[in-house]
């Protein structure tokens, strides 16, 4: 009987502990508040010295949001645009943006927008001297979710690569 009582007590204790932990976890769970709607994945890259090479800049739009593509359907919409600073020993050509995908708000399917969602890659052709280089830049974008739009934002980035 004592053993049965002990087992019962252990089960009850584990149950209470689990319940309390779950409740505490729920109460403490922060509301997701993205501070940036686009994330840049900085990856060191290698190119051949003096040879035209293409660097890939990987971005990701946070789930649930979209940003206008580089060529939105309306001139009044703010396009996604990457501005790069000159870097010593690096000759950079204009960047190439990916094509966007069609998007419309559920309340007005007739209005078509051109947007990026999820991962998108901007290509940067360069010719570089030997060594490690850092090209600084800013991605300007304007994000929306399914019903609202957020003010334009600027995301500072660093493209780090080595020419060998």
């Amino acid at each position, binding site marked *: *009987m*004592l053993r049965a*009582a*002990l087992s*019962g*007590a252990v089960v*009850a*204790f584990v149950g*209470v502990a689990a*319940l*309390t932990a779950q*409740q*505490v976890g729920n*109460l403490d769970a922060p*509301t997701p*508040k*993205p*501070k940036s709607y686009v994330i840049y994945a900085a990856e060191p890259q290698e190119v051949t010295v003096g040879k035209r090479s293409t660097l890939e800049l990987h971005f990701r739009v946070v789930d649930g949001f979209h940003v206008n593509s580089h060529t939105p359907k*309306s001139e*009044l*919409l*703010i396009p996604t645009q990457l501005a790069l600073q000159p870097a010593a020993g690096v000759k950079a050509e204009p960047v190439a943006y990916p094509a966007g995908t069609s998007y419309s*708000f559920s*309340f*007005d399917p007739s*209005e078509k*927008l051109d947007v990026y969602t999820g991962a998108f890659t901007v290509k940067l052709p360069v010719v570089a001297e030997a060594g490690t280089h850092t090209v600084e830049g800013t991605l300007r974008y*304007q994000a*929306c*979710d399914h*019903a*609202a*739009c*957020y*003010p*334009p934002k600027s995301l500072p980035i660093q493209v780090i690569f080595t020419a060998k």
Partner: protein
Amino acid sequence: MKRNGLVLSVMVVGIALLLWAGWHNLRERRKAMQEARDSRVVLMPAKPGQTPDAETPDSEMTGPHMLGKVAPSFTLATLDGKKVSLSDYKGRPVLVNFWGTWCAPCKVEMPWFEEFRKQYAAQGFEILGLTDDADAGNEAIAKVVRKTGVTYPILLTDGKVQKAYGGLDYLPVSFYVDKNGLVVDETAGLGSKDEIEAHIKKTISSGSSTAAGGQ
């Protein structure tokens, strides 16, 4: 047997204590969270024209909190430079809509607003479109106005009015102000046309037509 009974009693008391401790802990946390929420509300601008010290990232996506409050007064310029005040519409139901030239969903609802403005004109209903990005320039703003076909007053914001209305983290945001000057509904983001009409009807039917109001 007597010993077993004693042990069992001790265990029952122990489990009861554990349950009580868990419940007490939960209650305390809920209380603390409620207090935190209350203090967050206190941080919102409570009076027209009152500005917060600084914008914090944490304020993002919280939405407006003007429901039941007197709509903050404002006097803003139209594209033609004419001054328009909310108080000019005292005693009338008014929709104060914040929009921007870069905001695609804003441009979806603006033609709906125009339609409802005509439909409910006999009830004195009016719409004021407050351009959040006044720095876009009159030409860009006028282009959107032409494209959406709106004829209601379009006003250029001054930075203060957005703060007076709780700080706008995104667009569109609308405040439905009744005849008494009270915010009876507020919406953040694009809703359906039916929802917008329901808000307008509620605003028209709210408040006394003879009341002075706080506009």
